[in-house]
């Protein structure tokens, strides 16, 4: 069989860094993986300054982004988020992933002034959005919609991330129509995952998941205005297979995707691991940007016994899985939270989001 290249080892230079301006979130979504989301631990500006020292150098050489994640990044407040963003030069792209509930005119002006790209988390129409609730357990939907209306008023383009708890036929076309109406230009569809403090089972009927993806292709095809991450990648992969170039489609190395926690602690590859502790691997952290530059932590990651174990898992995928050229070997957090270790291969997540996805796309074109 043709060798699938790529994903060999971890790059020393990231394409982006995930920053946690506060651990706090004003929502309490049923499936959330964040352990400290009820507490307001804010990132000191020194942490942002330390990261920016490297980020500004990386951005001068290549595209580089900072993603303000959380917690809910807007819960940090404009003044503090602005102070955290300030050390990053204009070449650094800044992104915010927000639950949208705090978005208002002032936030839209804040983003426009800084060229910040916005992505909102919303799971579809009200009845599909029941997992996104306030601390009191009340639906957040009305506030999410209000926040998105502010973005639209300001002509701010935005992306959306959607979590699907029950992937089955009937859901996909409703979702796609909803996001067309919502006006996002890009959509990522995540089948709910078991990770972090979310321990709900995520096994779904394979036929239903395939039918979900297949239906999404049909809905998208009728009006392909939105860039749907899952479909773009599937089509790009099948196109490369037909051209005979699929062996070289994956990135050469894994991106380390450092997540910098509120306190400066760095976790590589999976932000979902930040804040957890394992008897063997400790806190998964590679060090702290207040003690050593991020670029140094990426070259000589300390206390990261789990990274080699994860890379062994990626190699096991390459050796055994016919979907590797499409998938690239899955995510560290999914392996850990499903298998209790990093060197396994198939997970519920990869079945739902990779294998059934590709099969659903093929089902779509094979349909009578």
């Amino acid at each position, binding site marked *: *069989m*043709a060798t699938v290249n790529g*994903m060999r080892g971890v790059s020393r230079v990231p*394409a*982006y860094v*995930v920053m946690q301006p506060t651990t706090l979130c004003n929502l309490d979504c049923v499936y959330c993986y964040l352990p400290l989301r009820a507490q307001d631990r804010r990132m000191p500006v020194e942490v942002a300054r330390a990261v920016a020292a490297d980020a500004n150098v990386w951005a001068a050489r290549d*595209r*580089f*982004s900072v*993603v303000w994640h959380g917690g809910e990044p807007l819960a940090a407040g404009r003044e503090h988020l602005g102070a955290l963003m300030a050390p990053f030069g204009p070449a650094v*792209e800044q*992104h915010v*992933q927000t639950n949208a509930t705090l978005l208002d005119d002032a936030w839209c002006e804040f983003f426009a002034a800084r060229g910040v*790209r916005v*992505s909102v988390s919303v799971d579809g129409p009200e009845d599909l959005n029941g997992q996104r609730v306030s601390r009191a357990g009340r639906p957040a939907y009305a506030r999410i919609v209000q926040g998105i209306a502010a973005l639209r008023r300001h002509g701010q*383009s*935005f*992306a959306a*991330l959607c979590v699907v708890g029950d992937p089955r036929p009937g859901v996909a076309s409703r979702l796609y129509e909803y996001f067309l109406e919502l006006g*996002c*230009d*890009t959509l*990522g569809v*995540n089948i709910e995952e078991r990770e972090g403090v979310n321990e709900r089972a995520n096994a779904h009927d394979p036929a239903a998941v395939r039918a979900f993806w297949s239906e999404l*292709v049909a809905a998208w*095809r009728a009006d*392909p*205005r939105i*860039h749907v*991450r899952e*479909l*773009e*990648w599937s*089509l*790009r992969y*099948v196109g490369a*297979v*037909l051209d005979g170039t*699929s062996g070289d489609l*994956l*990135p050469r190395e894994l*991106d380390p*995707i450092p*997540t910098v926690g509120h306190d400066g602690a760095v976790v590589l590859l999976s*932000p*979902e691991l930040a804040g957890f502790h394992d008897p063997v691997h400790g806190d998964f952290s590679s060090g702290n940007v207040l003690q050593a530059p991020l670029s140094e932590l990426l070259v000589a990651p300390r206390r990261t016994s789990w990274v080699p174990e994860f890379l062994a898992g990626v190699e096991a995928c390459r050796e*055994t899985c*016919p*979907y590797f050229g*499409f*998938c*690239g*070997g899955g*995510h560290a*957090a999914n392996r850990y939270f499903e298998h209790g270790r990093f060197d396994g291969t198939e997970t519920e997540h990869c079945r739902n989001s990779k294998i059934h996805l*590709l099969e659903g796309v*093929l089902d*779509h*074109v*094979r349909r009578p």
Partner: protein
Amino acid sequence: MSDALDRVVDRIRDVRGELAPLLEEARLARLARSEVPGADSSAVCAWNHFENIPTFFNWNNRPR
């Protein structure tokens, strides 16, 4: 084993004819979205650089 590993690729090749119009529609849709070199005003920008789509809209090896 090698047969098993080639299975998916073979099945994709089996539906080459059916995939062709879908791939063409996707290409035209990208053009319509200005996902072409130099276009960087959208939320995620420059879609032609698939590997380099920053952040959560990157496909491989991404957090969510």
